């Protein structure tokens, strides 16, 4: 069982490799680790990027690798509430690479980096949450102040 090059039973080598790297060289500002007994589910903790309305917040996400992965995109969702034009009420994220622009050459790491970038640069022109997006377009200052408030309320525990 303990062959040095042994792989993990029933877990595609691709997932083994990505997990190995996520654990050994984490993305700055992001921790991601598989949960409990299912190595296709990842719990992710993402720090709100500096100079964004989400700065200082710790956002929880869940990431699941479907059976078809990497031919199909990972499924990612915010668990922590976030006021963002590209994230809907139940945490789903509007990001092209999670949908039609997915490519099997992308990785969990690249997906997480893209989500981090989305926090730095919200895109109200491609909204998932119209209410938030409209305010973001009409009164950005107010939207940013709400995003900060939500960050303080929901993403800064203890």
């Amino acid at each position, binding site marked *: 069982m303990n062959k*040095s090059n042994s792989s993990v039973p029933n877990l595609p*080598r*691709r997932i083994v490799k990505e997990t*190995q790297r996520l654990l050994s060289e984490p993305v700055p500002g992001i921790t991601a680790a598989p949960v409990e*007994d299912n190595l296709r589910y990842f719990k992710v903790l993402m720090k709100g990027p500096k100079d964004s309305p989400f700065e200082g917040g710790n956002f929880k996400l869940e990431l699941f690798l479907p059976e078809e992965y990497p*031919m199909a995109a990972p499924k990612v969702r915010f668990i922590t509430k976030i006021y963002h034009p590209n994230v809907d009420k139940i945490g789903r994220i509007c990001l092209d690479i999670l949908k039609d622009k997915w490519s099997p050459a992308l990785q969990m790491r690249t997906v997480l980096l893209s989500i981090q970038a989305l926090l730095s640069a919200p895109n109200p022109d491609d909204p998932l949450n119209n209410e938030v997006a409209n305010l973001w377009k009409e009164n950005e200052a107010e939207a940013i102040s709400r995003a900060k408030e939500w960050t303080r309320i929901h993403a800064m525990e203890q």
Partner: protein
Amino acid sequence: MGNCYRKQRTPLQRLGTRPTELDDEDGPYMLVINNNNGATGTSNNPSHSRWDNLRNRASRRNRDTQPTWSLCRLTDEELDKHVIDTLSTLRNSAENGTTLILRMRMFRFWANGETGWNMVLLSLIRAVPLDNALGPSAITLFIDHCPLPTKQGVMKLVNDLNLSWEKAADEFMHGRNTDKCARHRNVCAVLGHLAESLAGPLSATILTQNTLEYFMCGLEQTINGVHIPVVNILYSLIALEKFAQTGTNKDKINATEIRAKLMALEDWTESSDYKKCQVGFSARWLLDNAFIVEGRPLSYESVSLNNINAMLNHNDVSEYLKLSADGLEARSDASSFESVRCTYCVNSGVWYYEVTIITPGVMQIGWATKKSKFFNYDGYGIGDDEYSCAYDGCRQLYWHQAQSRRHIHPAWREGDILGLLLDLEKNQVIFYLNGDPLPSEGGIFNHAKEGFFAAASFMSHQQCIFNFGAKPFKFPPLDREYSCFNDHATLTAEEKLILPKHKKLELIKLSEFRADQCDLCCDLKANTTILPCKHSGICSRCVEIVDCCPFCRSEITGTIIEDTNSNSYTSQACTSKSSHCNEKC
């Protein structure tokens, strides 16, 4: 199971506050009806004049015809009654009945504030009876419907409980006194659930030395010659497991005699007492996953899997379900609704399997295709979409498309055998309880004709054992020919291996990768160049299944596959992307 099982995530201190003039403290209030004869309601009258005025106004308007309402402080007695009544509503309400939703909201309303939260949790500890099949699962459910507590709120609860070794011993010494056993079990369930949902510093604060000893006392099998009730041993174990999810707690527990205690309790795995089975299973799971004993073989290393050809699929299971090393027993202690499918898929014929019920609480056991989704956090499982159907023997319901219908079987009890028949010739699903069949169901066949798996969902603290035919069936169907998975399925030795998480992570860290492997599968050698973009780094197997170049998204017009025998690239026949194959062919 539906929305009632959804978690509430709003922290306590964020909820709206009541009118301040009402609050001499933050304790919860309730409305009571003032009958003419004064039979309802409690003795403590509302003290505040504003509410008196409202009540008087209301009573003036509706004098003689309508009952009037007044606002009273919520009493412990009323709260306990609410807990008991909600337990019975939970047991009997088919779906998200309005009553159940309202009752759940009352918990949320009352627990909004430190005093109220404290009252609700103490009431759960006091009022949930020992013999209720839903007991501890209901406790986790109710707490999830309360707002998250503040640190002070949690500390006050721990102080109020004032736990210690002596306190636990006292509760066990009165083993005949079911109230005290229930109290001990409920304390374990409540604190265990708090430890899990507040994992981190707060969980570490709860586990004081005295609290730890209160739980450890439960792992003694006897105190002064008196046997500790098995249920108290079980929930002590579960509480310790949940506290151990926080690192500092785990170190603290590790420093006790936990391993020796667990090794002694592991022997109960094969017991004919179903409560002892649960203790054995939980102890073994902890020894395999959390408290590793040097020199003790992990269960997966010692289990015999020779005649097992079908099992629960450890790659097709939601994250918190615990599976035994032989893949035939499952248990959940998580507050989410955990699900699993089996390894073998059936498309035609008549199939039968049996399940031994170890715990009589809510499980939904049945059939599902791969399209059925496990939304464990939202309380959706087997029977909660069109691609699955399930039997729930606790609430006595048949589930399909998240709709339930009462069936005529009595509520299941531990040791009962649930039989499940899928007849793809007659399009029938039949459930048997100890051999007694229900009328056949067929709704699922409107949505799926093939691709069925045995599947089940578990509410917290539920456990059962599957028999896919490796052992003789207890109540085989007599009215038709049937097959069992175990006679037709095959699994490789590797597929049968259910490794504990730490073992898998160890393997992940030990895995080695060559530099020249395919970027997509990380398995085969990257031997293919895509044309016309000339991107390489992909193998000849993966290039077959991509729609365009995975690196630049350009259309693939041809490929060059490296000759495995030489280093030179030789142009080979184009791949299956023949429609684009005009450049090289």
